[in-house]
């Protein structure tokens, strides 16, 4: 009975207790809170933080000095780490620009670097690492500067050597081996070097195949490079660049140079693994046979013959 009374009182008092506990907790929180967070305490902590007296100046200068747009740290000197959307925009802008103005170097440079995505460069890196000369190139990191290739020395080499062919090609085209634009937008340091090496060897590919720097010659070298090395920019060039050419140029390209480039590019050994600086004295025909490169018909002579034929036809007609 007492238990019942207790139980009954208990049930009531449990409810009472929980209500009391609620009330007590709430009251305690309010009381302690009002002690801790009183106006004086709040102002005191603000004064400690320095927000009270210098409120206007401090806040303003903090807001302005911190830039809202930051880039990650560069990985090598001259590196500009771009975000993905920026690389995309650069790709779109430079592909439109290089289609309409392939002679402007900045478009080709931007297109090349924005399209040379990591998977492709890594595949190239593996190709280089699988070959002893490729490994040597990656270890020594040779760069072609205006001083590293001594043109006078190359002119004195025997006519059939690689160095002499190169220098004669330079003279015939009227260009100098000025340094190529440094790579800036490729993030990994070694991949950036591989791309820089690819860019600097471009003239050697011209010299070994004998193709001139006119647009048809450049397109042909690009197809050759694409089939051999696999850079997307050269593939894009091969696809889209001929669309702007005249009919006679297109005919020549599609009938003679594209088949040559595809066959030669696929059948020859990887050009990226050639250490050009060390083989300048080597005989060029031996080199071509070793690599499996065929030379295409001379483009300048073909064009000359074509224009002479036109002139004759006009004279006759």
């Amino acid at each position, binding site marked *: 009975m007492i238990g019942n009374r207790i139980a009954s009182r208990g049930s009531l008092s449990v409810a009472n207790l929980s209500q009391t506990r609620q009330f007590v907790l709430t009251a305690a929180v309010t009381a302690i809170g009002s002690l801790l967070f009183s106006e004086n305490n709040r102002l005191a902590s603000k004064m400690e933080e320095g927000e009270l007296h210098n409120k206007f100046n401090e806040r303003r200068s903090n807001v302005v000095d911190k830039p809202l747009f930051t880039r990650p740290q560069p990985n090598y000197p001259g590196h500009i780490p771009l975000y993905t959307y920026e690389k995309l925009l650069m790709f779109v802008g*430079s592909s439109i620009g290089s289609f309409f103005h392939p002679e402007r170097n*900045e478009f080709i440079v*931007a297109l090349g670097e924005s399209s040379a995505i990591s998977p492709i460069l890594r595949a190239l890196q593996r190709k280089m690492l699988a070959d002893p000369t490729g490994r040597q190139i990656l270890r020594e990191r040779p760069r072609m500067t205006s001083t590293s290739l001594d043109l006078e020395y190359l002119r004195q080499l025997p006519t059939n050597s690689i160095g002499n062919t190169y220098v004669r090609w330079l003279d015939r085209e009227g260009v100098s081996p*000025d340094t190529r*634009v440094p790579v800036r937008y490729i993030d990994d340091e070694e991949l950036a070097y591989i791309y820089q090496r690819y860019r600097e060897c471009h003239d050697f590919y011209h010299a070994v195949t004998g193709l001139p720097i006119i647009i048809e010659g450049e397109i042909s070298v690009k197809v050759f490079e694409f089939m051999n090395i696999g850079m997307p920019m050269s593939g894009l060039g091969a696809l889209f660049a001929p669309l702007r050419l005249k009919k006679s140029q297109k005919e020549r390209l599609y009938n003679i140079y594209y088949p040559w480039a595809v066959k030669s590019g696929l059948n020859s050994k990887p050009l990226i693994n050639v250490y050009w600086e060390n083989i300048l004295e080597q005989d060029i025909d031996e080199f071509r046979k070793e690599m499996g490169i065929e030379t295409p018909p001379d483009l300048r002579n073909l064009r000359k013959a074509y224009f002479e034929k036109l002139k004759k036809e006009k004279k006759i007609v």
Partner: protein
Amino acid sequence: MSLLTKSAIRSSSGYGCRIGVRPLVQQLRFNSSTNPNNSNETTHFGFKTVNKEDKEKLVGGVFSSVASKYDVMNDAMSMGVHRLWKSHFINRLDAGMRPGSNRGLDFLDVAGGTGDIAFGLLDHAERKFNDTSSTMTVADINADMLREGEKRFQSTRWNDGSDRVKFLVQNGEILDQIPDNSKDVYTIAFGIRNFTDVQAGLNAAYRVLRPGGIFACLEFSQVDNPAIDYIYQAYSFSLLPLMGQLIADDRDSYQYLVESIRKFPKQEEFKSMIEKAGFYVPEKGYENLTFGVAAIHIGVKL
């Protein structure tokens, strides 16, 4: 002392462009290390820190390289809004010899290289007030920009042999060929940001103006609204250098441009600098354009 890298000056492209740049960098290094009077005072060049004496040359390099594509790039970068800013600037100044006055005004446009503000002012004066006697002096520290202005001048209607318009190569902080108290209107549009010593430029402006003369400055400034500021900064740091790279083949100059905008004092601070030079600044002294992307500051010499 920080080293100047080649990226501080534009990177070159193609054949043979590098030759002019490398000697300049080497020469600067040589001078700063052997000059005994090197005060080692540094200032900012965008986000980089450079010697004070080198900043002028670096800025000169930037503007020499952007001179030829200057207006195309301005249109592309601001999507044409800079024209609205400049015409509002000219309309607000409303400068011109009023009918009934006895002498024309003497305008001075500093850092006005390509001449768009200068010709706009003359045009406004002639159209609104029939003012054909005010003179205009266009001063710019960079001879290449000034040459662009002179080229453009050849085809305007003020090239009538009347000697109303003069082009001078002047340092805006000194203005040595301009006598004291000789100008009525001093304008500087998007130029004062590049001065090594902005206060000196303001002091020179005070010196050359006649009492009653007006100092008017149109310059990039800070955006107050944080949301718009975020969009603005993302745009200026990612898209503007990309446009510079693709349209003008010069990413570094445009990177310098956006960094120097960040470094320029805020509206209130610049207003105080103008007051420090001695100008009377009427409340509130500046007008924000496009949420504070640009601002017009006015001062009057009493």
